């Protein structure tokens, strides 16, 4: 079988995010971009299927974005993906994941990269919407399961048993491939690629698809207006006294001042 894993680039979770003065987006100067952590689960899961002994003819890593997006692909390739596809364009609707999913589906078709299993992260940590996976499944006409924390394949990898985390508990579902899964924490532990893998990844092929060549050029569906830095929280009131005094004062404040108890 073939597997495609989505590997989106996002600013490193430790990065300080500076909003451009006009609110048009994030100032990329000095930002370090990495593969979104949930997408690392997707790539890792793909590689582990192969390592688990299933016949995986090809693992394709797919990314979209400006020039920097290739960094996420490099991570995926170093982790064990065989080749990359980079949907490139300067004005991709990166903050509109439904529109993005439509373009990605078009790119996957154009590149003949439909696979038996499509894996992506439950969400990217920049947009924090998680719209991409379910929307992509719809555009690729695949069933999907979201928030996957466990995957068991039968011997032929024809059928999957899937564990999904929900607000009610863990749900177990079953179905035949092909399908799309969005990966949650707990599914697999992403590896840190060793240096030889990083070196090897540099030689793996990456095809670039220019977004302007895609057949489906529909308008972005929602309009992203601007980013704001959230207002600062007021400074912390540090209590003093003995632990007993602090405890009593705290409970009093929570009840009378903050009115949350």
């Amino acid at each position, binding site marked *: 079988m073939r597997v495609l894993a989505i590997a989106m680039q996002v*600013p490193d979770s430790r990065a300080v995010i500076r909003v451009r003065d006009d609110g048009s987006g994030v100032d990329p100067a000095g930002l370090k971009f990495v593969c979104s952590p949930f997408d690392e689960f997707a790539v890792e899961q793909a590689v582990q299927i192969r390592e688990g002994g299933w016949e995986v003819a090809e693992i394709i890593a797919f990314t979209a974005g400006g020039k920097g997006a290739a960094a996420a692909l490099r991570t995926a390739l170093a982790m064990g993906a065989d080749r990359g596809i980079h949907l490139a364009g300067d004005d991709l609707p990166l903050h509109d994941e439904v529109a993005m999913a439509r373009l990605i589906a078009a790119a996957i078709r154009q590149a003949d990269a439909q696979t038996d299993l499509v894996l992506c992260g439950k969400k990217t940590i920049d947009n924090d919407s998680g719209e991409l996976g379910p929307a992509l499944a719809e555009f690729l006409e695949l069933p999907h*399961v979201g928030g996957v924390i466990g995957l068991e394949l039968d011997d032929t990898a024809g059928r999957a048993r899937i564990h999904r985390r929900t607000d*009610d*508990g863990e749900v177990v*579902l079953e179905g035949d491939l092909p399908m799309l899964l969005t990966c949650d924490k707990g599914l697999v532990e992403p590896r840190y690629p060793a240096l030889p893998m990083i070196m090897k990844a540099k030689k793996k092929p990456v095809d670039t698809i220019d977004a302007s060549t895609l057949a489906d050029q529909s308008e972005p569906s929602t309009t992203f207006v601007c980013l704001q830095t959230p207002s600062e929280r007021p400074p*912390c009131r540090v209590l003093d006294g003995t*632990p007993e005094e602090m405890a009593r004062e705290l*409970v009093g404040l929570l*009840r009378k001042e903050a009115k949350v108890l």
Partner: protein
Amino acid sequence: MPDTALIFIERRGDSITPSSLCMLTAARALTDGAIHAVIIGHDIGSLAEQVAMIGVDAVYVVDHADFEHYRVLPYTRAVESAIDAAGASLILMATTSTSRDLAPRLAARRDAMMATDCLTVELQGDTIAVTRSMYAAKCLGEVSLSAGTLRILSIRGNAYPAPTSPAETPAPIMPLDVTLSDADQHIVFRELVPSDEDERNLADADIIVSGGRSLESEENFSILYDLAHRIGGAVGATRAAVDAGYQPQSHQVGLTGNVVAPQLYIACGIDGAIQHLAGMRGSKVIVAINTKAAAPIFGVATYGCVADLFEMVPLINEACRSLDGKPALQ
């Protein structure tokens, strides 16, 4: 023309989730038009009757064994038929594991505009302007959804209050027959392993008592549970505590865990790493208990105690005992 809104009423077991009822309040802020509700499940007659009393104009009910458990494709069909029956142009759902999965699939199917996990929603002319948290809560994004096509919003559970004026007469209940294709039934439900009693849905909790690696063991978390039980809260944890096995993954708060915004978040022995803050900095009041005065958690806290959590937490519990029996403040 004002939108006709459809609010998605979610079930948890045999009850309606409080957060989905809050969607009625949000819908009223967005439209003067009709507001309908849809509820989906199996043997849900009495739930539908409850929904008929909340103050909506009609309740669409999809009640069939195929819908007993959430599966995205059957539920997408069910919501689609309610949209068509109601003539809805605006869909509101509370942010939950279900809506995060269902809404984007529906948006893609219906060529809709959508925004996920909105913190505020506002009508400006006929455009809907929303704010949502982005970049791990480091910035707020403003998104506008213009009129003309279907608009789908999911809204954070506690962003809007529950409706307070129930209907005097029940709204009409409209059963819907939904035909599923083989493809819709492709993925089958096998089982639900419910979260244990103590895993009250973090996203719905008004109070969260949360602990870090410094709790040192699963057993020690019991002091947090004792406090949480006394003040009606749920228990959260850092990734370090989850990875060490002290708490299940479903309790993790942060970038790769739950994003929560309770009224009160009590952080016990939590350093305040940026990835943890990503999951809780939207809380109304934050209490930090940490032995290290320089811990970054104090940078977002409302009240701080530089103290040993093993000493402080039981003392706070003790001090809260005097509140027992007093009515909770709104």
